[in-house]
């Protein structure tokens, strides 16, 4: 080995160490708050009342903080159920509505087609925070205030610009010949959509579903305004009420266990389906 080669190799090694040192350091900063919260949730309640230095349970790990969650409101299972109902409801309705609309916009001609498509997409320009007051009145008029179904409909509408855009692009990417061949064989429009097209646009469906789930599971302001009945609180609303002392002395250990319950499904879903999630992000960026 020549001296020059050795020098080059040493330089590459130092570069690598510097790069990964930086990378790992930043990674620690991003992970630290998540880890801190999750670790503290396993402390004994008395220990969790003190500053979390160190974050891990020193006095033995327990699930006491999780057990306490059942004392708030209608109990953690009821509120987790509310959140899950809203999230899954939003996923199912978003997928059905955007699948139909995407197919319609991609494959059919009808009057004002472009106008209607632009109308749906442009609704993303208007922040929903600015139409909350009338939404509240409309939901009340429809007897959907304090109803999880009402909240689901609002969330589906908030997701629509993204979901419809996503699904129309997914259908556009499928060659027309495939569908026409099936049609020639005598299959009905519905059969073609479900049996032939659905498998082909499935990645788009997964992307729509992930965004619908995460955004509705995490949404705060609309749930805060529309769900005034305590039994209907979703998890973020319940835990905020706990943190504001609505259920007695503020128990930070219990709140971090609640935060953990809220965070874990999002983190797991993202890690499992990252590919589809990033596709959704870049679909907007490339546009």
């Amino acid at each position, binding site marked *: 080995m020549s001296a020059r080669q050795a020098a080059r190799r040493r330089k590459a090694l130092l570069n690598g160490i510097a790069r990964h040192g930086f*990378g790992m350091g930043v*990674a620690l900063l*991003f*992970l630290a708050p*998540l880890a801190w*919260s999750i670790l503290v949730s396993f402390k004994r309640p008395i220990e969790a009342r003190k*500053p*979390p*230095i160190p974050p891990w349970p020193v006095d033995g790990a327990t699930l006491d903080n999780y057990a306490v969650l059942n004392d708030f409101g209608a109990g953690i299972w009821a509120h987790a159920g509310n959140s899950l109902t809203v999230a899954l409801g939003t996923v199912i309705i978003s997928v059905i*509505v955007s699948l*139909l609309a995407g197919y319609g*916009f991609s*494959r*059919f*001609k*009808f*009057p004002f*087609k*472009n*106008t*209607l498509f*632009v*109308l*749906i997409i*442009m609704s993303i*320009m*208007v*922040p929903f*925070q*600015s*139409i*909350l*007051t*009338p939404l*509240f*009145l*409309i939901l009340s008029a429809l007897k959907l205030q304090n109803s999880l179904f009402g909240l689901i*409909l609002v969330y589906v*509408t908030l997701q*629509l610009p993204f979901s419809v855009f996503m699904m129309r692009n997914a259908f556009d990417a499928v060659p027309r010949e495939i569908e026409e061949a099936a049609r020639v064989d005598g299959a009905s429009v519905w059969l073609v959509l479900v049996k032939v097209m659905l498998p082909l646009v499935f990645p788009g469906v997964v992307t729509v579903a992930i965004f619908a789930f*995460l955004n509705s599971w*995490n*949404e*705060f*302001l609309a749930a805060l305004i529309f769900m005034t009945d305590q039994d209907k609180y979703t998890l*973020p609303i319940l*835990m905020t009420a706990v*943190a504001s002392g609505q259920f007695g002395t503020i128990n*930070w250990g219990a*709140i971090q266990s609640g*935060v953990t319950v*809220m*965070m874990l499904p*999002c983190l797991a*879903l*993202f890690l499992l389906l990252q590919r589809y999630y*990033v596709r959704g*992000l*870049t679909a907007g*960026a490339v546009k």
Partner: protein
Amino acid sequence: MATETLTTASSPRPTRNPRRRPGRRQLVGLLFVAPALLLVVAFFVIPLGMTAWMSLHNWPLLGKSSFIGLGNYEALLADGRFWSAMRFTLYYTVVVTVVIFAVAFPLALFVERQRPLAGFYRTIYFLPVVVGFGSASLLWAWLMNVDAGLFGPALQQLGLTEKRINILSSFDATFWSVIAMVVWKTSGFTMIILMTGLQGIPTDLREAARIDGASRPQLFTRITLPLMRRTIALALILSVAGSMLAFDQFYIIAQGGPRNTTLTAVYWIFNSSFVSFRMGYGAALSMVLLVILLAISVVQLRILRTHEGI
């Protein structure tokens, strides 16, 4: 409101397959998009029109509403607390956007190329993005708590402060802690957007410039930045629009405090409409916010479109 002006109705072209009855086929297409349209009309178009309509009324939660013309807008002009909320929101937006870009741009450059562990770093830096603002705020509210939290006690134990400081009692400490939280939670998102822009730059272009003797900073300012104009515009608009609508973090962490100094525009609308139930007034505030946001988007697009070189 943007929707009416921006629609460019192109006349429907004749159906592709003339053998099928066009009338029926058109109807089928409309039926497919009908559920989506119904939702957009019921929960977007009508509420948008109602916001404009309600803003011209005195509209209490119960009882009759009365038409008062531009009364709400006159009241709003004189409402010092709304304008200080607006000023705070702008201040927050500028600061948080600058810090997010200062963090996200280097990270995007760091994770852009396919190198060992680049995918791992991307994933980790992105993780906080998928956690909700509600969860993240409750997490940081605890970290910022004076008795059971981390920041105050840690500063004291490290000997940086003599007494244990209560972060939430000072505007600056509250503000910068919230900034830290938002940067932690959203930089990964901006990083990925910027990364797709970086990856869109043809490598031979950079190679050619390097062969021509361009230095690294020159490469960045002359090649990378100009070619990323659209991506930067997108990331900017998303960050600015998101920050202008900030609510969760200030509501959950600080309840608008200390002494109402961290009330944002949306927070003020929320208070007017759903705490004091002056819904007509809340609608007028919403209209102002709406116009400001649309204006920001248009101006940003313009600036980034005309300045070719940056």
